[in-house]
């Protein structure tokens, strides 16, 4: 029976849809879980209760209710907007976010799309979302949107650098850019023990900024820019952007867990559940940072990237290279 199933799965045309469905399922569940977690965790950190009504038990179905609400809302395109660009922007932001999930190793043999350069694929895909943000910003014909877009572009370019450099340090240490191999070469404690712990913090900070999450949410600073590039979006298109954000949290957490925390490896029984647990823990930290820290000013944001994170990640690259050449074990 199992063998028969295995044989069936060996067929490409059977395996492919299964993979696609699995990735879509992950894409549709985890961001919702993280979104719900954000509601609740943030509420409790602010001495509130958060959603309590939808789904009877502590508002578990709040995001489903939100989704239904978004579907019912009118999709407004501003008169002065560039209609095609405006309508396409959510898709441009969303599709790369979905694709990233295809390259993450979920288990020993559970890599939907295995690639020699998986690390670079994920980084490349997450950098494409910027285009969606810029499209949304420019096409809205709204000065706040445009300002938010410019800020987003500047911020994403700035933080892309330490992000890639920290990831490159891991690739250097593991001797491969294949995410599955990177996990294989880690113990279950990951690279968190050793000099790469600095890389973990650099990567985490830069990823937070890439996601334009607080405290790096200057591009959508609601007190001055309304909602940045999302100001003019309503209904389903807005929901897509929100979904992109939460999917981004999940995928960045998954990549960080894969690069630094040993991915699907765990102390007892290796498997996808460890990755899920690590992803949820990292997502919790993302939410935690959001409810703890105040927003950075634009100049602080830029100088933090260029004057702190980039030099630190460059130095880290040097240190890892040194240790690698002289074969000092990490």
């Amino acid at each position, binding site marked *: 029976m199992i063998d028969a199933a295995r044989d069936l799965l060996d067929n490409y045309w059977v395996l492919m849809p299964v993979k696609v469905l699995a990735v879509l399922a992950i894409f549709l569940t985890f961001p919702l879980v993280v979104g719900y977690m954000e509601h609740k965790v943030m509420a409790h950190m602010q001495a509130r209760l958060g959603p309590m009504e939808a789904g009877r038990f502590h508002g578990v179905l709040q995001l489903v209710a939100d989704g239904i609400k978004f579907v019912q809302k009118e999709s407004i395109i501003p008169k002065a907007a*560039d209609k095609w*660009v405006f309508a396409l922007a959510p898709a441009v932001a969303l599709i790369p976010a979905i694709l990233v999930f295809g390259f993450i190793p979920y288990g020993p043999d559970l890599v939907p799309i295995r*690639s*020699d*350069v998986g690390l*670079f*694929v994920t*980084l*490349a*895909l997450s*950098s*494409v979302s*910027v*285009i969606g943000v*810029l*499209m949304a*910003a*420019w*096409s809205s014909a709204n000065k706040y949107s*445009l300002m938010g*877009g*410019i800020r987003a*572009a*500047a911020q*994403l*370019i700035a933080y*892309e650098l330490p992000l*890639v450099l920290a990831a490159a340090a891991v690739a250097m240490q593991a001797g491969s*850019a294949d995410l599955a191999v990177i996990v294989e070469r880690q113990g279950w404690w990951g690279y968190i023990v050793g000099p790469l712990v600095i890389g973990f913090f650099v990567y985490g900070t830069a990823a937070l900024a890439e996601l334009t999450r607080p405290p790096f949410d200057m591009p959508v600073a609601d007190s001055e820019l309304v909602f940045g590039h999302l100001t003019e979006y309503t209904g389903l298109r807005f929901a897509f952007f929100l979904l992109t954000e939460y999917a981004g949290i999940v995928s960045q957490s998954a990549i960080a867990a894969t690069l630094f925390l040993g991915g699907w490896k765990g102390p007892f029984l290796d498997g996808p559940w460890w990755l899920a647990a690590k992803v949820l823990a990292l997502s919790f930290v993302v939410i935690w940072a959001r409810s703890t820290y105040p927003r950075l000013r634009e100049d602080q944001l830029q100088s933090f990237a260029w004057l702190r994170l980039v030099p630190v990640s460059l130095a880290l690259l040097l240190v890892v290279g040194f240790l690698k050449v002289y074969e000092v074990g990490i």
Partner: protein
Amino acid sequence: MNGQEVAFLILAVIGGLAGLLVVTSRNVVHAALYLVVALASVAGVYLLLAAPFVAFVQVIIYVGAIVVLILFGIMLTRAPVGRRVLDNTLRARVGAFVVGAGVFIMFTVFLGGAFGDERIENQGATATEALGESLFRNYVLPFEAVSVLLLAALIGAIVLARRD
């Protein structure tokens, strides 16, 4: 005609059309977005040509950085719309078209004469390891030169754009 060729033709048509729109669009931002499409299809072509690393570097650098930079520049300056602002006179454009078409015909004819019957064999994707070996063993000097160039460009850009 196998699947690879079909995929290539689709990508080439999309990329060529997008490239054409880049140089004819009357809206700078649209042109930049068409450029994204053209560059992405070029990345797809790299994938088909068994060069995945170059393909993803293309996406990271071009789509993730260069186009963003260009859009950034457009938004920081102005996004002028209309033929009169963006394009030269009709005569200049006709001349440009003649030159462009001439270049295309010349390339096609010459290259067709030289490599008309050659085929690219199907092959496995180039291992990133092999690329790294080659880059850091045989081409380490050009690599260093490029890094110096990048540094010079970085400093030059700062010096130019700096307001003092």
